[in-house]
């Protein structure tokens, strides 16, 4: 396998993995910084960024057909609706 083929194979996935590792180190370190109520949203935002990286690069969501992209977004959309309805109940008691 020549250098060019090797580079084409590994470059993007390896950069993505590097970004995931940096985000993991960041979220682990920030968990020990007292931010009051801000710790959880920050940790979840970093988790969402990591999930987005896995989805777009590793799972190649951007190269998928529109039908597959729609199927991929359906899960998170239903979860969003569930959490909005649940919050409307529990947060307004």
């Amino acid at each position: 396998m020549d250098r060019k083929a090797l580079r084409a194979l590994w470059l993007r996935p390896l950069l993505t993995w590097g970004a995931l590792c940096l985000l993991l180190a960041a979220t682990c370190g920030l968990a020990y910084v007292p931010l009051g109520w801000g710790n959880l949203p920050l940790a979840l935002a970093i988790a969402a960024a990591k999930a987005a990286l896995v989805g777009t690069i590793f799972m190649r969501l951007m190269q998928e057909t529109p039908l597959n992209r729609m199927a991929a977004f359906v899960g998170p959309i239903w979860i969003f609706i569930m959490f909005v309805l649940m919050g409307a109940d529990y947060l307004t008691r």
Partner: protein
Amino acid sequence: MNEFLRPPWTDLERQHRAVTFGMWAFLASEVLLFAGLFAGYSVYRGLYPRGFLAAGNETSIWFGTINTFILMTSSLTIAVAGRAARAALLGPARLLLMATFALGVLFLILKGFEYREDLQKHLLPGPGFPIAVAGAQLFFAFYWVMTGLHAVHVSGGLAAVMRLILVSGRNGEWLRGSASEEATALYWHLVDVIWIILYPLLYLTGRAHG
């Protein structure tokens, strides 16, 4: 007629599209299964914030973080395996699948050691539970159910990866021709994504309050 074509499809392209669409639809249903647990966790965390923070501090940050790193690395190896298979580099693709399998097994082994440590600390909800704050037992109920369900998914993923390794040993072209590799990789990545969400909920909670 292509040897990898299955009825009712008439060409590989359509078969491939059907398999990936079916997999994405299945993954959406998997996400909703875990979402029910996330919803329960959110409600009880809202009701017992002190108990969740106290209990979250008792999970093993080392096992949790190292296992996150291992699963992310296994996502890398299976992603590159797919790219290698599509580039007809079938030998390297198979080696990367073996690496993925090994990393998955390592994840489960470390999880087993972590469970042993948890049990030694009596962190199973019930009599003798060591944290006397309301809601702490509920946190650990979610911990055991969520990580247990996730481990079942890792085991299923390992079986699927092993199938790829075995079948491609008999016929390397199968990795490129059939859509099995891509479907398995999608499932494996989802298992990684679920863990990425579980990690802050179970391992980072309460660290700044300790």
